[in-house]
């Protein structure tokens, strides 16, 4: 009987931008090009988080009561903000700023969706960012 092929997905290293396949269930991997550790799982923020860097190859979801204060936030697939994001720079595939969300910081993304009611205090937006 043929073995069932494991489900894979393509991710992009946030250090060297190399693209490669990983198992859909993988949480962390090492980049085959630069050998640096990568987080590939989705990150869900439900409370306040103050960090220097928050990076993942997947999605970052900041829920209603979530608050992220960071120098750099990278969600290669997407960043979805329903709570508060305060950063110097955010990079993402797609940025979703939901109705009651608050955003402060620069934004580099392939596309951005801002819904009515969102607050953007400060920020330089570059959309689409061709380097991503």
């Amino acid at each position, binding site marked *: 009987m043929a073995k069932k092929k494991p489900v894979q997905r393509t991710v992009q290293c946030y250090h060297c931008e190399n693209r490669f396949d990983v198992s859909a269930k993988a949480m962390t991997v090492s980049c085959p090009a630069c050998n640096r550790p990568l987080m590939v799982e989705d990150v869900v923020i439900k409370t306040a988080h103050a960090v220097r860097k928050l990076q993942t190859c997947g999605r970052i979801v900041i829920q209603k009561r979530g608050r992220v204060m960071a120098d750099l936030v990278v969600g290669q697939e997407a960043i979805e903000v329903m709570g508060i994001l305060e950063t110097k720079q955010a990079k993402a595939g*797609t940025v979703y700023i939901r109705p009651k969300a608050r955003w402060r910081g620069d934004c580099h993304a392939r*596309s*951005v969706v801002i*819904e009515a*009611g*969102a*607050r953007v205090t400060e920020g*330089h*937006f570059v*959309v689409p960012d061709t380097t991503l």
Partner: protein
Amino acid sequence: MAEMRPTETTVLGPDTRFKGEMAFDGAAKILGRFEGTINANGEIEIGPTAKCKAVIEASSVVVDGTVEGNVTGREKVKLTANAKLHGDLIAKTLVIAEGAAFVGHCRVGPDATRANGSSSMVESKGATPEKVGARK
């Protein structure tokens, strides 16, 4: 403030080229090329065929074409999927559809348009269509 007449919309057709300053009491739709300043009490719609190099201030701004210049929406600014905006944006409410292109500074919220005691922060900083998009 002049009374809004939403049924009366001034349209600048796709074959129009305009350079200068325009003010509307009601709504307006730009479909051609525009260079200068637009002030409106009603809604300004930048159509899909429009190319504007302008500082725009209106109660409501809908961008469906290309704008190079600062945009202030006292109530609402909407960028459709076809929109291309290169300039700073100030709005009470902002809606950006997926696919829209936007390069510039952004301030959104009830306080954003009220800052400096003026409805237009970009105007108070002496912005011109040539100066937009530069980092402060």
